[in-house]
């Protein structure tokens, strides 16, 4: 315990960095993933194909490869950014595919009568999506989205290998100097990750409860 306290600033900074990374990635992934889901159910075939292709490719790509694209390939095309920025791009691009799947499953779970009724009162596709389908679909998608966000938080550790000093990076670096403290470090940092995991799952349970049909 004393050892963890001595290094608490390193560890807390690392978790802060991880939370910044995951926070931005969560925002972008949720927005892009929802747009992709709408594309995949739209009446315009090329939009549908684009959405389907994106999900098919990204779901079959390891996150590490996704990071390599953003940290070693794209910088050689003349784009520059901080490692944290690239990590946010990589994690968002990857997670968006899973958000899309969760939202699409939510859309499919909306009773078809809802869409038919929306059309019967003269709504366009955009209106029926925005006002009728998505509000219900997102509600149904809350539990799977919670799982996606938890997985994303755990996946943010991959950034440690690509120049972002977050939790796994802190573990790795501290072990280089204090190999004998391995179990203290492991338990401390693993517990830190678990706390955030349980916090995310509590938040999503709360959202699920407050959004339930009245």
């Amino acid at each position, binding site marked *: 315990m004393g050892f963890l306290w001595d290094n608490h600033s390193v560890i807390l900074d690392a978790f802060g960095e991880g939370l910044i990374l995951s926070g931005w990635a969560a925002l972008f992934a949720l927005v892009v993933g929802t747009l992709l889901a709408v594309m995949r*159910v739209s*009446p*315009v*075939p*090329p*939009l549908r194909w*684009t959405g389907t292709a994106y999900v*098919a490719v990204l*779901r*079959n*790509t*390891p*996150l*590490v*490869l996704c990071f*390599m*694209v953003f940290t*070693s*390939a794209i*910088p*050689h*095309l*003349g784009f520059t950014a901080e490692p944290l920025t690239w990590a946010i791009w990589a994690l968002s691009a990857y*997670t968006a595919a899973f958000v899309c799947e*969760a939202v699409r499953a939510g*859309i*499919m779970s909306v009773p*078809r009568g809802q*869409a*038919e009724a929306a*059309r019967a009162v003269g709504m366009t*596709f955009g209106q*029926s*999506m925005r006002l009728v389908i998505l509000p219900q679909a997102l509600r149904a998608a809350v*539990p*799977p989205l919670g*799982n*996606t966000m938890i*997985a*994303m938080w*755990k*996946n943010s*550790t*991959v950034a*440690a*290998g690509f120049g972002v000093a977050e*939790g*796994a990076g802190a*573990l*790795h670096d501290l*072990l280089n100097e204090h*190999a004998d403290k*391995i*179990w203290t*470090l492991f338990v401390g*940092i*693993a517990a830190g*990750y*678990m706390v955030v995991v*349980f916090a995310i799952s509590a938040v999503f349970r709360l959202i699920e409860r407050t959004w339930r049909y009245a």
Partner: protein
Amino acid sequence: MNDTGFLYDAPGPRARRRILAASVLTGLALAAVAVWIVVRLNDRGQFVTDLWEPFNDPSVWSTIGQGLGNTLKAAALAIVFAIAFGAVLAAGRLSDHAPVRWVANLVVEVFRAIPLLIMMIALFAAFPATLGPLWSVVIALTVYNGSLLSEVFRAGVNGVPSGQREAAFALGLRKTQVLTLVLLPQAVRTMLPVIISQCVVTLKDTALGRIVTYQELLLVGSTIEVTYQNYVPTTIVLAAIYVSLNMSVSGLAQLAQRWLSRARKSAPPASITVAEPGA
């Protein structure tokens, strides 16, 4: 599942014109993006033969082959052990004895909440000589995927209609017999596609092994990039290999799904999904 037609009416003449216009616009936008990417790659000299030259060298391909072999080896070992570990955990969670259930549930909750990478780093740091990179990767993947699979197994067994279990008990079968002779054979039908898609997740997760210096495909690729300074071409080659490999395994999962749902006339019980994307 894939039929989203209920979201809009069959288009009339005006809607058809609008859809056509939107399709053309999307097509143009996509083409513009594709052209921009190609132009950008060309401007930066990424199509110069020098950068692609290493891929004419058989020794580069044999290195890639070794990396791919290591990836497949770790994934195969991890899947086999994870299925065994998951089965044990699932048996524990389905047990009639409450303490056994608690322990199994606790193990699953803990291992699901710890990032894989943290487990790999810790295992490798704690037992560098005994485990080495390969077994650090395999053990971490085993406990993590085993915990996920135990949930699949449990849901699969619980998903078998309860009449089956009751009928088996009424015939005088024992607990273990009910499970192995009646419930499991039926549960496998719903579980197999999920198990196969979990193989894809494992295949992807072996790439995390680079942090403990496991020489898997992507780490080998990183070395090639640095040696030949051909970052973009190598990334393209690696992506092509990895994505096509995973897509074939995913395709296998879909085939299994279709084959199993055709195997019996009755609709299979609601399919189970693992909602964890993995890395």
